[in-house]
């Protein structure tokens, strides 16, 4: 058989056209799917992965959408994403405001995972990093308004480590303290109990992915006081330190200011142990009336 006979040549042409048609059609489908896959990597900020979940990029390649983690969660926290959910279809997630993670000590969801999409190396739930709590709204948080709500602090399973109440003066009343819930990200597991229990209509504290919640210092940055602690002494020879006299506008007074030139410290106004000064503002109903 001659390979260049008209019949085989036509058949070859037909085959090539058919293949090209197929490659183009399926290629288009592939392109669409690929772009959709890229989209699906953008996990919505409020959808949290189970404890031990690999970073989202790896997770979507490792999770086979079987739902065993969902089944073994005793609190029905987890669910599998439905097609209309903005989370990759069939993958497990939870919304902390609905049902938070109860941080089981034996971590059954991780144990159930057949693919290590939930990393079996996680054996201490306190080391989980499902996200980081962020007190996202300082305007509505009751503690920021000067009240003592404290609920997020009280429910935190890692209380006094992951969330502390930091006392600062309430400058509005001038005579009270505000107990500000403060998250320490190295201890926060992102379980979401704080977000769930926030008493507001919309939670003022929310679990965000660490990537959204955290800043990052320049890697060359050194924090002076930490370095000093490490070295056990000052990093410079303080005896050779020259402190120039501070030049202030005529008659200006800075409360609590130390002037090395005169060796004098200005008194603090309104603070205990310092000379009496004017209270910055009066609580309503108190001002002006003796």
């Amino acid at each position, binding site marked *: 058989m001659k390979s260049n006979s008209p019949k085989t040549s036509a058949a070859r042409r037909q085959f090539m056209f058919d293949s090209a048609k*197929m490659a183009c059609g399926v290629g288009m489908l592939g392109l669409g799917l690929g772009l*959709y896959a890229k989209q699906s990597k953008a996990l919505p900020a409020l959808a949290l992965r189970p404890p031990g979940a690999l970073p989202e990029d*790896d997770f*979507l*390649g490792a999770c086979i959408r079987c739902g065993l983690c969902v089944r073994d969660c005793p609190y029905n926290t987890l*669910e599998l994403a439905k097609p*209309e*959910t903005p989370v990759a*279809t069939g993958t497990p997630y939870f919304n902390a405001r609905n049902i938070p993670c109860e941080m089981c000590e034996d971590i059954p969801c991780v144990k159930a995972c*057949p693919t290590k999409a939930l990393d079996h190396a996680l054996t201490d739930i306190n080391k989980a990093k499902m996200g980081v709590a962020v007190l996202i709204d300082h305007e509505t948080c009751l503690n920021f308004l000067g009240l003592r709500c404290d609920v997020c602090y009280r429910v935190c399973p890692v209380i006094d480590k992951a969330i502390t109440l930091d006392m600062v003066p309430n400058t509005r009343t001038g005579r009270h303290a505000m107990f500000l819930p403060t998250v320490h990200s190295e201890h926060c597991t992102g379980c979401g109990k704080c977000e769930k229990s926030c008493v507001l209509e919309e939670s003022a504290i929310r679990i965000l992915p660490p990537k959204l919640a955290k800043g990052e210092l320049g890697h060359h940055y050194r924090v002076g006081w930490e370095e000093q602690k490490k070295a056990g002494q000052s990093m410079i020879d303080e005896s050779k330190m020259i402190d120039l006299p501070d030049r202030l506008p005529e008659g200006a007074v800075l409360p609590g200011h130390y002037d090395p030139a005169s060796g004098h410290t200005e008194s603090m106004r309104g603070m205990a142990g310092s000379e009496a000064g004017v209270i910055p503002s009066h609580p309503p109903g108190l001002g002006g009336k003796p």
Partner: protein
Amino acid sequence: MSQMGNKKRIGADAVEEKGWLRAHKWLILRRLSQFGILGLFLLGPLAGIWIVKGNLNYSYTLGVLPLTDPYVALQSLMTGHVPEKLGLIGVAIAVVFYLLVGGRVYCSWVCPVNVVTDAAGWLRDRLGIKGAGSLSARTRYWILGMTLIGSAVTGVVLWELINPVSMLHRGLIFGLGTAWMIVIAIFLFDLFVMSRGWCGRLCPVGAFYGLIGRWSPLRVTATKRAACNDCMDCFEVCPEPQVIRPALKGEEKGVGPVILAPSCTNCGRCIDVCSKGVFTFGLRTNNPVSTVAITAQSEAK
């Protein structure tokens, strides 16, 4: 027996010859298998009886038997991720099973979408819908290849983003959401756009299982093909009609009676609808070139 015009219903002869029950034997067994498997999965969430956990992608039965969908596992592997021990054992068990009984047994005996597309095929026949679009049955292999390469490129288990098979099965067990729309879309596609369009031409899951069962010993065989009266009922009812001809009409060409095409789903509908009892389940090794003697022998009995 209702009739559409002059055309006799598919399998009418078989019903007359063998009775309704025997003319639907494999169909009934298949539906029992499909709904039985689904029922086992549903027993946990609905009744709190946990025999099987998970879904068709991966399941864990009675705390001893892991089963992993090898196609999903392969896509995951293509992204560079190796599953955990139980996941790997599950792949091995599933592959060995389908290697033996025929890969596309998954399609006809397990897959929930098969019920949908069979229903569409049945209705299409009843309504006498003909023609419309046609795609090569090889399209699914291209899609299969694309999903594997695509998984490697994107790092995402690609087909699972839109796989209607797992969406339906997972949906029935874990909550359907809008997955029903996709199921309806497939039903309408098969009904109006393309006969056997989804399972027969597009679905890469079936393509993959077909490849696993490429050399499976269990096959449908037209042992008594000499008795064929050319009623064409098997071609009409078969979801992959192209697989029958070489085996059924191979006597003169010296081709054995075993249906060797990997896309045969071992559904057994051809066995049901044949009034002459041409087809049967058999082993691929039992594939003599000529079957006239066998037919004559069994006729004599």
